[in-house]
């Protein structure tokens, strides 16, 4: 039992949380309420004429086939990005855990890409795979693959998934390494003495014990793929070709800032806000229940 903390002063606790509350109010609640209000307006870009339309913008957005397409794109993109970056990170973490010599060097190098800004990561991959000047594009063509992400939607998707996943591998690696270290060595040694091979030990002991980390990362990676990949998509494909890589976040930007349809864009961002709240709720419930695992 942890002892209950009691503050004798009635005002001080509120004062202490006041700065945080003020920041949340100014930078979250205020813009969020503006978005909510905007999502029920239909107006011209300059705000000269505006009309309150209740939920018409939501109806319009949700019945728009392009929005449905965007949901599919986001699902494919997020699942692929999360899976790819987590699998790669897990393999690297398990390998790095086995290294005895210069372990820290490997770890540092593997964490490095996390410091690269998304737009720059996007540009890097764009250059490597640029159909005209990219060195890897040249290699692909040499292997007989007709590489043209400017026109082929599936290739463009592969490109943005790789760029987004590559950037996230370091983060996942860090958590997997920490998770691996928390697994008692005695368990693994006992299994080894019982004759379990390495692969068997991994699937029956290490992987189940890593489950809390894996689940946590799954949520974090999904949120990342949803919201933090705008820079990559903007730099690499701009949502194209066609609408093959237009994710929900990119569509908010495109409709609001390029096409200047503010009502639709605001309605979409409110829908996104609901999705984030749901994802965060899942994460909190999970973390509360399972954080003391093992």
């Amino acid at each position, binding site marked *: 039992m942890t002892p209950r903390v009691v503050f004798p002063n009635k005002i001080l606790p509120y004062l202490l949380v006041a700065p945080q509350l003020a920041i949340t109010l100014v930078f979250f609640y205020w813009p969020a309420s503006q978005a909510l209000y905007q999502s029920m307006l239909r107006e011209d870009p300059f705000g000269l004429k505006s009309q309150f339309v209740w939920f018409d913008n939501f109806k319009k957005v949700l019945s728009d086939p392009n929005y449905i397409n965007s949901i599919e794109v986001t699902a494919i993109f997020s699942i692929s990005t999360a899976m790819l970056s987590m699998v790669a990170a897990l393999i690297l973490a398990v390998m790095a855990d086995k290294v005895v010599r210069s372990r820290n060097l490997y770890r540092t190098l593997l964490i490095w890409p996390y410091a690269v800004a998304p737009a720059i990561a996007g540009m890097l991959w764009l250059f490597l795979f640029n159909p*005209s000047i990219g060195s890897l594009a040249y290699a692909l063509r040499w292997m007989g693959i007709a590489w043209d992400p*400017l026109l082929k939607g599936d290739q463009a998707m592969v490109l943005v998934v790789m760029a987004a996943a590559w950037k996230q591998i370091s983060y996942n690696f860090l958590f997997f390494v920490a998770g691996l270290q928390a697994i008692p060595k005695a368990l693994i040694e006992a299994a080894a003495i019982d004759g379990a091979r390495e692969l068997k030990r991994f699937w029956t002991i290490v992987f189940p014990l890593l489950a809390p980390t894996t689940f946590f990362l799954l949520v974090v990676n999904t949120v990342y793929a949803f919201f933090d990949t705008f820079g990559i998509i903007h730099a690499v494909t701009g949502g194209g070709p066609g609408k093959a890589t237009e994710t929900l976040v990119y569509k908010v930007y*495109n409709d609001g800032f390029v*096409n200047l*349809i503010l009502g639709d864009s605001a309605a979409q961002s409110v829908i996104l806000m609901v999705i984030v709240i749901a994802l965060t709720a899942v994460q909190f419930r999970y973390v509360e229940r399972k954080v003391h695992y093992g």
Partner: protein
Amino acid sequence: MKVTGIAAGFAAAFTFYSTTSAFAVTEISWWHAMTGANNEVVEQLSKEFNESQSDYKVSPVFKGTYPETLNAGIAAFRAKQAPNIIQVFDAGTGTMMAAEGAMKPVAEVLSMGGKPFDKSQYLPGIVAYYSKPDGTMLSFPYNSSSPILYYNKDIFQKAGLDVDNPPKTWSEVWDAAKKIKSSGAAPCGFTSTWLTWIHTENFAAWNNYQWGTQENGIAGPNVELKVNSEPFVKHFQALADLAKDGTFKYGGRTSEAKQIFLAGECGIFTESSGGLGDIVKSGMNYGTGMLPYDTESQNTIPGGASLWVFGGKSEEEYKAVAAFFNFLSQTDIQARLHQVSGYLPVTLAAYEKTKADGFYEKNPAREIPIKQMMGKEPTENSKGVRLPNLPQVRDIMNEEYEKMLAGQQTAQQAMDNIVQRGNAAIKEATQ
């Protein structure tokens, strides 16, 4: 040490003096989207204007790409912090025109400055594009350009094509492109920037085909697109067919294809006349020609950007803006701007001066866009293209073109989809 100290003291005193004197000066802000060499021109012009007189001071502020600048202006207007002058790209013209209460027509600003706007001094094709249907000029043309044809003379030579006579019609372009590809002179025959602006909007004007009703939106906002007619379908089917074996290579939605041409991958290239600078800089052995047409040429329409003046400012500030625009309209400035940057001159006097100077004999490429725009009296199909949501309609076109070039649909399907989706978007934007 002592000397530098005194000098620093003088400098500080001077700065102090000049900042205090700035209170008497009317300062106006100019938000723009010019980068690189073009940004230097903006800075240089502002500096020269500020030094030429002591009543007004213009301060240019770079605000990002064209759409970013437009957004910054809109956001600033909504927050009641609008700048005096904002540079808006061609596709944003309709958006600005629809916001009548937010803007002050340039013709009105100029007459507040004491020098009423005289239409006859300006290049008609450009002024018409930035004017209301009744002829009032709404914005000040700053950088205008028009698409022309470029070709790589080395590749032409290798392919056995006539180096001094670039193709004039589209069917000649297709033949030349095929010859370049089949002879192995280059991996691709033809590429182009801006399939929307060049191959749809200018294609329509230059060939006198109808792009949309209501004179393509110049006469009124309720436009219905007509781009699924036979000439457009034929043109894009030709492009799609050439794309199959790489004779035509797609570069991207805006100016990306320029890199393909500069890399020597393609022999023929259509691009804005404003793109000449980069091609000259690359050192390529290039040639230029008029934008190709089908059977007979009409006139092309301008692209680029113009300067808009926000409403609700003080009279002094409008006088400052008027003084700045009058400064920009001077023949010497316009002629220099035209010769250095490759933008079209705004006034006829600047064009005549450049001609008299013999500039075009050495730089024939500079005169091509002017000739294209001044050749004939514009018809209802060739005055320009104007929609309150042109960027959105261009996006729709780009998406359908990409699907078509990837072989997922025919040109007829692409053009039908554009008309159907585009009309729905226009209706939504104008209701």
